[in-house]
């Protein structure tokens, strides 16, 4: 920010937009502005755990208490997406920044899909899954169109509900000392409804219709195709397919495997069960009635351009 102020003398978004558009039109270059934009983008990408600034996420997600991990995986994504949309789209979005975000989207999608396959702990798997989802959500932002911003907002909202659901389940399971994926064995026998809820959440993460996760990925990839990012959308589709391996592996563990040690069920408290019931209802009932979210996100995207 200080480098941009030092190079332009402006802090207001309107003034910055005029100055930077002037640079784009005349073809002039300013290393101060370029470095400033780069550092701001890197700072944002660090916070949302986008590749190649994602290294801190799996260790922090695993080591933190589950409510803190849930907060870290949801709140920064929402706030930084809003912040980056305001700064970049309103102030300084150009080819440089778009290329950076394209690269980070593709890298996040690929790394999230591949690295999660090797995980043995539930929270680390969710951390890598969140890195992959950041890649999908950045796809919407990278487009730089109204449809892209709308798909980003839809993706963020659906991602927040799925992640709340997933971490509420992890929190309920942590009471029974479940840490490894192998400990989930025979959860379908000890608590079948919880196993079904976890499976629905994982299938939604995988983008299987008619769950909410499918709608968000559908919109994101169509926005990418609409803006001409013909490489980004197929990469997203292929990494979604690869990601299904570890999501469905969790369902397979719960329903078809026997655990190393049988874990006794401990009752869940009412707050968690209500939260799980509400988020699961949203994930399953979003597909027949998506229009309120589509209308309001379209409004939000349009108003950022007008």
């Amino acid at each position, binding site marked *: 920010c200080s480098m941009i102020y030092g190079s332009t003398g402006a802090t207001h978004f309107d003034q910055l937009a005029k100055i930077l558009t002037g640079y784009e039109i005349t073809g002039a270059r300013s290393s101060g502005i370029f470095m400033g934009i780069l550092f701001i983008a890197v700072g944002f990408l660090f916070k949302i755990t986008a590749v190649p600034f994602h290294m801190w996420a799996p260790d922090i997600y695993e080591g933190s208490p589950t409510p803190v991990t849930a907060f870290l995986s949801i709140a920064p994504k929402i706030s930084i997406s809003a912040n980056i949309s305001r700064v970049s789209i309103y102030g300084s979005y150009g080819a440089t920044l778009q290329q950076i975000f394209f690269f980070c989207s593709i890298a996040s999608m690929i790394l999230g899909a591949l690295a999660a396959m090797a995980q043995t702990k539930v929270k680390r798997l969710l951390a890598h899954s969140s890195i992959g989802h950041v890649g999908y959500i950045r796809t919407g932002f990278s487009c730089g169109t109204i449809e892209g911003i709308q798909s980003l907002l839809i993706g963020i909202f659906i991602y927040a509900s799925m992640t709340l659901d997933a971490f509420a389940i992890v929190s309920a399971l942590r009471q029974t000392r479940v840490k490894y994926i192998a400990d989930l064995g025979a959860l379908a026998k000890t608590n079948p409804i919880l196993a079904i809820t976890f499976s629905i959440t994982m299938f939604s993460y995988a983008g299987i219709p008619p769950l909410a996760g499918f709608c968000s990925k559908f919109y994101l990839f169509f926005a990418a195709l609409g803006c001409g990012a013909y490489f980004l959308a197929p990469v997203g589709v292929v990494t979604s397919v690869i990601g299904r391996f570890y999501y469905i592996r969790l369902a397979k563990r719960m329903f078809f495997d026997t655990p190393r040690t049988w874990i006794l069920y401990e009752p*869940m408290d*009412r707050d968690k*069960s209500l939260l799980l019931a509400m988020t699961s*209802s949203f994930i399953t009932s979003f597909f027949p009635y998506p229009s*309120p979210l589509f209308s309001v996100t379209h409004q939000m995207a349009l108003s950022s351009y007008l």
Partner: protein
Amino acid sequence: MPLSATMVGVLLGLGTQMYSNALRKLPYMRHPWEHLLGMGLGAVFANQMVKWEVKAQEDLDKLLLKAKQANERRYFDDDED
């Protein structure tokens, strides 16, 4: 339309409460007053959601008209902007 929104909301609220009981491995109809509360809240939520969606669609149409007029002013008119 309000009847179907109410029915859907009631079923959603009842289903959510029964699901919550099932997750805790309790009988589905335990504390039936909570199911009545869920049905009431579900009906209110569904009706409010329908009203809000109609309002959001109207606001969106106004915003789209405003965007169209701004584009026509920018690209079709003879002003310097």
